[in-house]
């Protein structure tokens, strides 16, 4: 254990480091220039530098989530989480990363080497590319596309290819099972995810992230569209494979799924991609439903705006980890049931509700009411079908238990004397 001053000093250094990262990111945006610029060596150089800055930022955000998850899970389980490396174990993830990079990179002898080594990149690149349209604040965005939301969805789906290829090329049974699982799961859950996002787009009337955020200046969409948020959040969990939907790399069943044969740096890339994806889903939730950087203060300066946005994002990430600390994982058929029989109908219900409200021009609060009603209905059905039965069974067991009375009496002192 280091002394307090040293810990504080390292914490300050880390904070400054994050600040520098954001500054470098901003600088990179300035360097990137406009797409119409003439391509010269200088612009290419600038773009390369900018991409590196972007990559650094995203990596840092990703590994910050690793730390957050470990720490939070630890505390929720009565443990302390990482404490050894750096203050509060902040540098633990860096140490892990270095360890992973230095490990021997083993691949199965019968694997398809080319695909095997390309697959991690195919998983990581989409989660990197989606950052092109995700704004950290009003101006802090690489390209604020008109179809930003669409671009995000279109690109993020690509990572499935990487997962399937990883599973396929490993030539391992667990990996192929995990690959199939991931294909089934991710493709299925794209639909409710899109439906949830579509609800927001319908209300905001734009696919540009900054417009969506601006439209939430007074009321965040989570208050307006709780149903859409629930659908989006649950399918978002499934999209990034967080518990209870982590079935494609379930340790206790398929031992890591597509990643089972990977080691060293390649595994580290998968790992990083997983957390960057988690961050992306949390950021998307913050942008689409929690009002991004505008709410609760309205429009503020550049730096507080980033802080507000990151705060909301980390809050959602904490909720994701909280769910992980609590729930077991579903089975593949149950996962499909939840996706196709519950989330997609609910997603369509949300879309239809919004369409009706828009068509007839009802006041916006009716959206909240209708959304909540649909949510309550779904919850009621679940309670009725599943929980009531289980609780009744448990009560019956408690009553049915065979009571055993003492068959012999202990000899009391009186009886012994008698």
């Amino acid at each position, binding site marked *: *254990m280091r002394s307090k001053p040293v810990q504080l000093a390292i914490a300050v250094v880390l904070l400054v480091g994050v600040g520098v990262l954001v500054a470098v990111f901003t600088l990179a945006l300035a360097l990137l220039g406009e797409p119409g610029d003439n391509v010269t060596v200088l612009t290419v150089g600038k773009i390369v530098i900018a991409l590196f800055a972007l990559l650094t930022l995203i990596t840092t955000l990703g590994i910050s989530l690793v730390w957050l998850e470990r720490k*939070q899970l*630890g*505390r*929720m*389980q*009565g*443990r*302390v989480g990482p*404490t050894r490396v750096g203050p509060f174990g902040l540098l633990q993830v860096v140490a892990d990363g270095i360890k992973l990079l230095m490990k021997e990179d083993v691949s199965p002898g019968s694997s398809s080497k080319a695909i095997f080594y390309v697959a991690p990149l195919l998983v990581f690149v989409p989660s990197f590319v989606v950052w092109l349209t995700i704004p950290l604040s009003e101006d802090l965005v690489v390209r604020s596309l008109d179809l930003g939301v669409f671009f995000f969805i279109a690109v993020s789906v690509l990572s499935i290819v990487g997962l399937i290829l990883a599973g396929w090329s490993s030539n391992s049974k667990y990996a192929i099972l995990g690959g199939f699982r991931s294909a089934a799961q991710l493709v299925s859950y794209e639909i409710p995810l899109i439906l949830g996002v579509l609800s927001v787009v319908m209300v905001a009337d734009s696919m540009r992230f900054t417009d969506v955020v601006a439209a939430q200046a007074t009321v965040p969409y989570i208050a307006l569209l709780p149903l859409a948020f629930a659908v989006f959040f649950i399918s978002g969990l499934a999209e990034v494979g967080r518990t209870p939907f982590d079935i494609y790399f379930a340790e206790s069943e398929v031992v890591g799924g597509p990643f089972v044969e990977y080691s060293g740096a390649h595994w580290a890339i998968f790992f990083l991609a997983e957390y960057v994806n988690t961050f992306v889903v949390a950021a998307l939730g913050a942008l689409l439903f929690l009002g991004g950087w505008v709410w609760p203060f309205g429009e503020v300066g550049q730096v507080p705006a980033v802080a507000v946005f990151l705060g909301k994002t980390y809050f959602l990430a904490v909720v994701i980890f*909280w*769910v992980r*600390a*609590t*729930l077991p994982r579903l089975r593949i058929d149950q996962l499909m049931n939840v996706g196709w029989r519950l989330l997609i109908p609910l997603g369509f219900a949300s879309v239809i509700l919004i369409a009706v409200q828009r068509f007839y021009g009802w006041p916006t609060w009716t959206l909240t009411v209708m959304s909540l009603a649909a949510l309550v209905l779904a*919850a009621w059905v*679940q*309670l009725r079908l599943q*929980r009531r039965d289980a609780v009744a069974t448990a009560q019956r067991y408690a009553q049915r238990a065979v009571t055993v009375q003492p068959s012999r009496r202990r000899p009391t002192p009186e009886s012994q004397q008698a």
Partner: protein
Amino acid sequence: MIGTIKGLLTTARWLLKRPVTAHYPEQHLPVQQRYMGFPALLMDDTADEPFCTGCMVCVRECPTQCMSAQMHDNPKFADGSSHRRKIINEFEINLNRCILCGICVDVCAFDAIEMSYEHELASYARTGSRADLTLLLDLGRRYMDMSGWSPENPEKNVAEVALAKRAAAAAAKAASAGDAAATDDPTEDGE
């Protein structure tokens, strides 16, 4: 739904509680008084020699045969500073094989061996877990200091008491003008 919410609240409650983790190398959990660590040999300070006479009972009774012992004639018996005719010469415990069952302590008639509080004897060499007489006596010394150990049958085993008793008996015999016969001796021949 309700079950999940209850679960979420249960896990959230622990965010506010203190973790139960012990930071191991800095913080050692207190060892309970009866803790059975690796066996150690104890020293009879009054004669400056181990209690152990090498009678081999523990060696025979050990379920894993992790011990070996060798006795020799006690030079101190000759000069009268000890009542032990035989004394341990070499004693070795293979701590890799020891299963900490405590049977050796149960069978020892001389209070010579005790389960000490030692449980952190990791070493880098494979032979590092072979504890010889010196190490065992060191461990025993540490155990005696930590636990305030005193022998169960001092009149039988502690040299000072036994010698005093013998002297007293001899004096009594001398007083009654009888021939001083050999007093009963607790040691027995091993092997």
